[in-house]
């Protein structure tokens, strides 16, 4: 997944966690990058019309950004389900986060051919636990 999509997904999820705009600090923590890197990428996403940013408040995805963020989240869910259900990986959350930057959307779509995903994916994603709701039920 490319870097821009990872940021869009993070903004989208942090917005849900904070019930409002995603702050630079929260995004930097979540992505493991510096606040300066976050601001730089937010600027780029803003130029592309994918994010709105208000100083001292934070970033929010635009409707166009939301479409891409949901696609990125869906690909992330595919990865979690693939690791948990096909490869039997116990720490599927940790490994999905590690692998995410290397796994292209087309690869996720291909892996989707062998996993059983719920029709409401990715809306059922559990933001608090950063995991597919149904996988947690399997624990």
């Amino acid at each position, binding site marked *: 997944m490319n870097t821009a999509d990872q940021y869009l997904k993070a903004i989208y999820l942090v917005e849900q966690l904070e019930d409002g705009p995603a702050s630079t600090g929260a995004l930097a923590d979540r992505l*493991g990058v510096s606040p300066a890197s976050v601001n730089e990428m937010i600027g780029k996403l803003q130029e592309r019309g994918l994010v709105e940013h208000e100083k001292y408040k934070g970033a929010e995805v635009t409707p166009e950004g939301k479409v891409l963020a949901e696609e990125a989240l869906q690909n992330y869910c595919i990865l979690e389900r693939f690791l948990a259900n096909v*490869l039997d990986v116990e720490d599927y959350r940790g490994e999905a986060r590690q*692998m995410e930057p*290397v796994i292209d959307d*087309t*690869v996720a779509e*291909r892996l989707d051919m062998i996993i*059983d995903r719920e029709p409401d994916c990715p809306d059922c994603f559990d933001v608090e636990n950063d995991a597919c709701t149904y996988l947690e039920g399997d624990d």
Partner: protein
Amino acid sequence: MSVTARVESDGQLARLLQVGAVLEEVVEARAHRHYRSLPEGERDERIESLLEEAAEESAAHRERIDELLDALDADPIAFEQIEALVTEQYSEADTDFDGVLYDQLNGEETAYKFYADLIEAVEASETDFSIDREPLLETLREIKAAEAEGVEAVAKLMEERA
């Protein structure tokens, strides 16, 4: 987490190689399924040999990946397991000639992209893996080149049909 595409441990490398093995197995299993489900009227020598070669090539790539996994002391992914999952989720809706070719093209392109990204992620890493880096990269580059040839072969057949 990190937003950078970089392989940072033996464990992460092994897991990504397992993903590569699964992608090969999906191509191989779907090629077998396509071959079996293609209607009689849609069959000809060219598509039969294309599917056969695709399955053989994927099996050969899988073996090379399995050797790397073995050297990393990681488990291979059983073909039978992936074949069963492919069968479970397989839709026969797209099994006309063009649908089969498109799926093969998609499978080869995806594998090509995966190896290209994996090579970049290994090259971007400074990790000292327990297997030698150069033979690893050489294997991945050879498999990537074969995938590119596979893409060309399918694309050529599609052009001839157009």
